């Protein structure tokens, strides 16, 4: 007979070995699948790498895909630290983008630095409020936040759709349902050929790292995550801390939305978040809720996405192959976590 027991802290080297092994196992399994479809898996994988690193342009595209993932994951991380299952990133991104776009479209002539600053603030408020509503009801009536935040996603997406097809529709787009483009003042400038969101993302990683590990509020958040009762005994105002932290969590997602609207799309649209809100849940989780790992994991996912869209044109393999690969990597890495947290003992 075998018995399963929890492991005590494992050294980082072993954890990394397990994770890497899991990724390879996923690549191998997907490889069999690709082989089954009469393609050479090695060729497909190399061309995915080419698609994301092969030229400066492609590499920049990969970074552009990494940026919103990093910022959103940081937001999700704060919530998950408190065991508040915020799966509303998608909606928070949308509402952040909505508020930022509102500013961008209403005050197009405001000088660039001021306009961008206002857009960021309003973006964060939009996302923050969208997360705050479920948090409020959770603190008041202990409403299930997983389901609540999930529902908020759809409302936000329908709202943007409504604007895009209705009141905000561009009159000059010849009937095409799109919202007018922002003026240049509302577009984030580029640094080294990539919009400056990457600087914001890097700065945020450091800020959140310091916030979680070296400030009182950050410490309180961790304590609440460990045990609410402990937090209460220690005199932490649990409700207030949760509400503030969740506002911040949604605010970061909203900021990601602002960046996507401003720098990538130059307007607001329904496709703007492109599933980032959901992927960020996964990346935040796989990073073990550690800000510095988020960069790595988000980059890996961006490579999968970017490489995926490349093989479509290069091999006539449908892009869904990349989704299968993503799914496989996820399933294997999730499964491998078991070996990080538990050990099997022979009785």
């Amino acid at each position: 007979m075998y018995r399963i027991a929890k492991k005590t802290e494992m050294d980082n080297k072993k954890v990394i070995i397990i994770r890497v092994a899991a990724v390879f196992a996923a690549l191998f399994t997907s490889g069999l699948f690709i082989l089954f479809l009469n393609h050479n898996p090695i060729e497909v994988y190399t061309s995915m790498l080419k698609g994301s690193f092969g030229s400066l342009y492609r590499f920049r595209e990969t970074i552009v895909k990494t940026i919103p993932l990093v910022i959103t994951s940081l937001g999700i991380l704060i919530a998950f630290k408190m065991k508040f299952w915020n799966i509303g990133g998608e909606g928070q991104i949308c509402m952040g983008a909505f508020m930022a776009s509102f500013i961008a479209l209403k005050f197009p002539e405001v000088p660039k630095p001021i306009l961008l600053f206002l857009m960021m603030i309003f973006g964060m408020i939009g996302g923050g409020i969208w997360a705050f509503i479920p948090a409020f009801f959770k603190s008041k009536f202990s409403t299930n936040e997983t389901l609540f935040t999930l529902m908020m996603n759809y409302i936000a997406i329908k709202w943007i759709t409504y604007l895009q097809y209705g009141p905000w529709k561009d009159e000059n787009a010849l009937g095409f349902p799109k919202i007018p483009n922002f003026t240049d003042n509302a577009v984030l400038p580029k640094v080294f050929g990539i919009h400056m969101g990457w600087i914001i993302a890097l700065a945020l990683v450091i800020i959140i790292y310091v916030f979680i590990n070296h400030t009182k509020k950050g410490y309180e958040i961790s304590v609440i995550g460990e045990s609410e009762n402990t937090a209460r005994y220690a005199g932490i105002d649990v409700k207030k801390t949760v509400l503030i932290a969740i506002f911040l969590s949604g605010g970061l997602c909203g900021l990601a939305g602002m960046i996507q609207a401003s720098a990538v799309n130059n307007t607001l649209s329904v496709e703007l978040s492109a599933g980032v809100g959901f992927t960020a849940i996964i990346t935040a989780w796989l990073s073990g809720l550690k800000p510095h790992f988020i960069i790595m994991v988000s980059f890996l996912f961006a490579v999968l996405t970017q490489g995926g869209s490349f093989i479509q044109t290069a091999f006539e393999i449908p892009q869904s192959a990349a989704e299968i690969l993503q799914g496989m990597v996820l399933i294997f890495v999730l499964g491998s976590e078991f070996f990080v947290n538990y050990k099997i003992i022979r009785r």
Partner: protein
Amino acid sequence: MDFVSLLKASIQAGTPLLFATLGEIITEKVGNLNLGVEGLMLMGAVVGFQVGILTSNPFLALLGAMLAGAFGGLIYAFLTVSLRANQVVSGLSLTIFGTGFSGFMGKRLIGEVVPLELQEFFKPMYIPVLGDIPFMGKILFNQNIFVYLGYVMAVVLGLYLYKTRVGLNVRMIGEDPSAADASGINVNLYKYINIMMGGALCGLGGAYLSLVYVPSWQENVTAGRGWIAVALVIFVTWNPYKALLGAYFFGGLDIIGFRLQKFDIKVSQYIIDMLPYIATILVLIMVSIKGNKEYMAPKGLGNSYFREDR
């Protein structure tokens, strides 16, 4: 536009939702929040369609869809029950995998037509006597066989959960797995079986879309219905009987905006589309205010169970 055909169409639009909702209800009742419904439906839709085209046999097509869904359920169960991975993340991974899988397999199904044998099998069927009931008969009992199967499944599932010993155990596991374990119930086995049954039902819901409702292969044929099903479970407060009404109501909302346009009524389709989710949130809040245990999410929902944690 007459009322009878509107209601009839609502039921047809609600049937895939019903199957997926019932599937998610048993999954959640046994304590697992599976956010992979969309992926499970897509897997069922593509496999059901493929088998249907290859064999022209409706039973094999449905069996294939169920097996595909159950297989997805198995992956999810293995991750969350045996390996104790986080349920939310596992479910999302399953959706990503299922979407990719159906897109990949479905690429060569585009343009294929559902074989005549299947079309014949899924034609509307009048049920004698019941079909003659004025008004209701026309709406409820002049439907295709899949719709009838939906009625039956909802009732069977209700009886299973509320009237059988096994169903009692299922609910106990969902509420308090350690108590269930202590009373000698094999928690893991129950979870595996019920999650896989749930997956099979979601697969059926998908197959209804590709084989009967659409009926042809479209990329992402579910168009978010899997997510609506997750909302519906809350809306109907985890009750299979209410799921019948809830699914048809949501099915009605799905088509009503479209119909209203004919009357030139100035309500945006997108605002109407929002209503189900707002309603679901209101239900979620009301239920937690009332604190009525019967209407709440199972207590153990979302947590993996580890015996040594007791």
